[in-house]
């Protein structure tokens, strides 16, 4: 039985557009870190980094076109990370 290998091929242009977005977001991240101050300057580079990660995951890593099982694995991984962080911070902040 021949397994159906991924028939979907992403066009080169899509990748180039994603790359341009990533470079632009990198520029934005540096700009924001230099211009803003306070709590916003802590959080915003991380938010921008997460958007960049989302683009790499969805397009470069093909996650947007993958089967649902793999998307569930990734979501579960992120969930575990969030829970771990929450547990650690609960410990650290209330000592």
């Amino acid at each position, binding site marked *: 039985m021949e*397994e159906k*290998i*991924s028939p979907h*091929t*992403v*066009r*080169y242009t899509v*990748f*180039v557009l*994603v*790359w341009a977005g*990533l*470079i632009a977001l*990198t520029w934005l*991240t*540096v700009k924001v*870190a*230099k211009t*803003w*101050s306070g709590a916003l*300057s802590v959080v915003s*580079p*991380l938010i*921008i*980094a997460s958007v*960049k*990660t989302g683009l*790499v*995951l969805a*397009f*470069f*890593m*093909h996650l947007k076109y*993958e*089967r649902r*099982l*793999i998307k569930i*694995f*990734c979501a579960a*991984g992120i969930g*575990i*990370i969030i829970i*771990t*962080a929450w547990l*650690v*911070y609960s410990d*650290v902040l209330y000592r």
Partner: protein
Amino acid sequence: MDESAQAKTHRDYTGSKIGMWLFLISEVFFFFGPFLLYSVFRYRFPSEFSAGSRELDLFLGTLNTALLLTSSLFVAVSVSAVKRGNRNLAAFLLVLTVLFGLAFLFNKYTEWDARITGGVYPGSAALLQQGKGKVIFYGLYFFMTGFHGLHVLAGVVLMGFMAVFVMTGAVRQGDFIKLENSGLYWHLVDIIWIYLFPLFYLVS
């Protein structure tokens, strides 16, 4: 009929891909530990982390980010190229990826050299004098960028093999999972740096 000649190597495209994703998720868990440490100690030593960050070379850090993002583009396109049977483009882009990865590592070496010859390295007298916050900042810096650098090195070797495989046909239009999985690894290394960059270079 010769049965053994009929027997095909068992391939499991889906299983291979799922296995690689699971491995990558475990790598994320591994790197997340130090990220957690970083966040807790930055909260406790905000001014020392800020001072440490300003001592790092922002230009090199940004350049390294661009190098990894662009090499990720090359890898992604090379996978599409192989799927379309465009062997030469794929091999060329993979060779470029190796070069970009080596450039990243060279920049990393330059940065570390500047710190170390300046007397700043884990356990150094000069660093210990600067207080706990700085000691922790640089401890995390050397550990996290060092471990990430090792991953980049492994990725560079992997991509070198993939470039060869594309030319020999071990990776080809009908069988490219090795390249896809190697690509996934490379993109993960890129993602880790996407987070490392603001953490160490952009603390205001």
